[in-house]
């Protein structure tokens, strides 16, 4: 399998072509901007929160196939999770981009595996990590802020 076929596998191609909940849905209270000023990739994520649980995630914006599909997988995976669970899942995904993880570890989504390819293509690490890093920052600061729901 060529490097390209490995990078753009079915999961990434599918999520790029038909991203999950790809919709402009402005909710200024809980929106996250994932922006990479170096390349211009920019996604806005809109989180619908309910008592510490992420009910729905929509996102919209512009980015390469890797960043778009990675954001799509994020939206799909984190829906229905508590904020604490979501944080753990973000950490797991970001760890997977950097290091081999044990085969016994249960991944939040089988689709995560497709992104491990960026370990071999470091130039694309930022693409895969973009939305996850920003979401993790959002969740970490939301945990510190007083609950309003």
């Amino acid at each position, binding site marked *: 399998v060529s490097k*390209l076929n490995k990078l753009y596998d079915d999961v990434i191609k599918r999520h790029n072509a038909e991203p999950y909940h790809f919709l402009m849905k402005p909710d200024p209270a809980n929106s996250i901007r994932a922006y990479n000023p170096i*390349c*211009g990739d920019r996604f806005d994520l809109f989180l619908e929160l309910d008592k510490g649980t992420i009910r729905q995630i929509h996102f919209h914006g*512009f980015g*390469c196939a*890797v960043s778009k599909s990675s954001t799509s997988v994020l939206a799909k995976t984190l829906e229905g999770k508590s904020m604490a669970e979501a944080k753990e899942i973000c950490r797991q995904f970001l760890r997977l981009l950097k290091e081999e993880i044990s085969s016994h570890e249960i991944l939040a989504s089988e689709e995560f595996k497709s992104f491990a390819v960026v370990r071999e293509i470091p130039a694309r690490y930022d693409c895969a990590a973009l939305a996850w890093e920003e979401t993790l920052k959002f969740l970490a600061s939301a945990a510190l802020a007083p609950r309003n729901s």
Partner: protein
Amino acid sequence: MSIPLSHIKQLFPIFHQHQKLIYLDNAATTQKPNLVIDTVHLFYELENANIHRGLYELSSEATQRYEAVRATVKNLIGAKSEHDIAFTKGTTESINIVAHSFLSLVNEGDNIVVSGMEHHANLIPWQQVCLKKKATLRIIPVNQDGDLVLEKLDPLMDGRTKLVAVTHISNTLGTINPIEKIIAKAHKKNIPVLVDAAQSAGHYPINVEDLDVDFLVFSAHKMFGPMGTGVLYTNKRHHPLIQPLNFGGGAIREVSFAETKFMDYPFCLEAGTPHVPGVLALGTAMEFIEQLDLHETSNHTYKLAMAFRNEIESLGFVQAVGNPKNSGSIVSFVVDGIHPHDVAGFLAEHQIAVRAGHHCTQPLHDSLGLAATVRASFSIYNSLNDVGKTIDALKDLKTFWS
């Protein structure tokens, strides 16, 4: 006798090392010929000594050769005196020096005019001067073809305009701007002009005296020279205006604990140990350029860019960005439904080096409604074969993604 086009590529050792490399990222940096690389290497191996004030032979030789490069630069750009030439780290630093110097001239309510296609390096320094001084930054608009709307320039310039700063060649669109017209218009109103020649110096004949340009800036590494070295040309009438950005040794006449008297331009700018082998290699790059027929080479790169532009347009799924009246060796483009990074990543797997992103012209991209583009930029060692292989790879890209 100039070097024949067919002999040029073999003078660049990177292509011996990477035989399949199709290098189309020349607007970011060009490759370096053997002579330039040897100059840096041999300086450290055989000639290394710090310049100025050394009374031994190695130091005085280094000083002489360093100073001689000013004359080489002077000749290449047609300046009156080698003392109009200051060595800097590159285009960005050159512009920052001028912008820093303009802080003393610009007051609240004044304005500075730049174009809508400037590289961030010729935008941000002026924007920051304006913000600090409560002055206004005025923008010469760019039309959809990628040409400056020159009719809009006159109304932008008034009695409070302190400078016009404009690029000679757009690093994104390839547009060659009519700088002689812009300079004439500005000078009619006694406004000085800075020309960013990062994409043109060494590739097109430039004569600063004929142009009567006030400031001209460029980098060595985009004209076959080393990274980290560049030039600031300042017309003599502005020498007293230019103030050092860095303070330190070598740039001073007299120092006491209370005050310092600085040397005149250009020496006041060269505090600290400069990049001596870089400057020497800049001189070598210029000697290399003197052996080229610039009309022939610029015609060659123009033809490659035009062939590429025509070929991508005929693919049907690729659009060139802009269609300037007068353009050089740069073509930016977008591929339907495929992000510029995915395009560049795919081409990289085919040994084709292009750039993807906003190429440090984010406001220009915003005005064209584009988040990012792919850019192919051609140089003297590229060939129609490179164009053909890139077109083939773009066809494969389409198949891969469908």
